[in-house]
């Protein structure tokens, strides 16, 4: 087998985002910035008002009276969504531990939505595929983390 399959070479840090429920105010700015980051224009008004198909935020702020919780993909080490994916669209990168979806392969069957114990996978109805946190591949620190005014979303790079 190839050396790539054996996982040789430098391994990148494991990137993780955690919600800090005591600090979340429920403002929803993380959702706004996530949506804009995943839009075509990456401009707020265009992303919300003009783009077709409309971008979908991959983070969801749960709101219950006076309690708020920002929820996104936990990048599970044993990702049941990946094991349940009917098409192979969801894969866990063994080098980074990140779970990513190939939107070209996703058929929008929603099986992973039923499998995810965090309710962290969303339906992108206009595209007929799922939307999930990708840890903002074009950024050093994910957009939701940067946008949060109260540092309620924590970003960690774990060395391995």
């Amino acid at each position, binding site marked *: *087998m*190839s050396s*790539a*399959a*054996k996982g040789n070479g430098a391994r990148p840090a*494991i990137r*993780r985002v*955690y*919600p*800090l*429920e005591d600090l979340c105010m429920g403002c929803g700015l993380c959702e706004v910035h996530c949506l804009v980051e995943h839009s075509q224009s990456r401009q707020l008004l265009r992303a919300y008002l003009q783009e077709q198909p409309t971008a979908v935020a991959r983070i*969801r702020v*749960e*709101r*219950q009276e006076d*309690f*708020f*919780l920002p*929820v996104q993909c*936990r990048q599970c*080490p044993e990702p*049941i969504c990946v*094991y*349940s994916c*009917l*098409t*192979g669209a969801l894969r866990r990168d*063994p080098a980074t*531990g990140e779970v990513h979806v190939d939107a*070209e*392969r996703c*058929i*929008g*069957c*929603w*099986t992973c*939505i*039923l*499998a*995810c*114990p*965090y*309710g962290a*996978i*969303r*339906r992108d109805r206009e595209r*007929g595929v799922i939307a999930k946190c990708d840890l903002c591949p074009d950024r050093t620190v994910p957009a939701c983390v940067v946008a949060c005014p109260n*540092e309620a979303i*924590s970003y*960690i*790079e*774990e*060395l*391995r």
Partner: protein
Amino acid sequence: MSRGNGRRHARYVMVGNSAGAIGAIEAIRQVDTDGAIVVVSDEPYPAYSRPEISEYLAGRTTLERMLFRPPDFYERSGVEAILGVAASGLDVRERRLELADGSGITWDRLLLATGGRPTVPPIPGADREGIFTFTTLADAERIRAALLPGCRALVIGAGLIGLSLTHALVHLGVSVTMVELLDRPLANALDLKAARVVERKLREVGVELVFGQTVAEVLGRPENDRAVGGVRLQDGRQLPCDLLAIAIGVTPRADLATAAGLQVNRGIVVDRRMATSDPDVYACGDAAESFDFVHGAERVTPIWPNAYIGGRVAGFNMAGHETAHGGSTGMNALSYFGLAIVSAGLQEPGDEPGCEVLVSADGSAYRKVVLRGGRVAGLTFVSDIEKSGIVFGLMRDGVDVSDFKEALVAPDFGLASLPEALRRERLAVPLATGRAAGNKGDA
């Protein structure tokens, strides 16, 4: 694999090349990067997404786009794939698998991931041309080749296979009649209310539905008695059709196991490690029975995720990495015709003692959770499905939900609805988060 003196041997041999075998291969390669793996399959292609044959028939995808893993998967994983060759015999004493091409291969660990074959009841006249099943890519190709303009199809069975076929046929403009023995579609996967949602949708897209009936006889055509021209139902009614599909389910392909003397009930019997009655032979997927934590018994649950997860457990154990299957149960998500419905476990508890049913509905949304002894035993969500996985997770883990059961069907249900201790445990936020990096507990 060694090939000396005409003797072939591999540490691991997989019979079958679908979700179960891939799950096993990926697990083995996590813990054993060197042991030779050989995959044998009667299908001539790399592993493909079987559920996508509906999209394939509809002309909306290609085999290349349906591949379950990238084209270089076998090479990268160090797997020799023998494709298009059926396994014809199994000698567990000699640790030898016979292939239909006359060759054989010996193994240290064997996985029987042979899947299911379509259940075809004996119907008089069912030897005519124009009769199909629908579980493989080859089936989809055969049906596609048989479709002519103005073609009328009759599908026996309104379960998951029948629905996936009907979805493709409707897309192709074929007029479809579904004949179902029970009184509704998807009776084995959905509760009554969700099944009615599917029924309404099917009628809306023009599908004719005949419930409480089965086909008593397949009729020929006036001009060609050897070709399908229609069916006669049990009640005597005759329905014309040019194409007949039998989609009433699948039966475990356990012939190899049975002939080899392995224990087989309805499917191949395995323990929680997915080992059969022979400790070096494993089985998973549609061919095998596995522990259903809702029914508290071994059963065949022929769905894709269970095959992959069972294969994964088998793979770890085959490689000497002890792993027990936590159990599975029936779970399905439906997106045909723009619907969004998910279900798992017990759907209609009836008057089963200790059961409680929680329901809420607004607009097109419908949420139902079945409790048994304070724990989730079943769920059905229509339209509002994005948080159903949280409920399924509580169900899988056997969490006592008595204290917050009403919240499970609330429109704003989420992780925030769980008691704080449970929520924190499930989110597993490292203690060091926000103060110092470097927590390795999650890796």
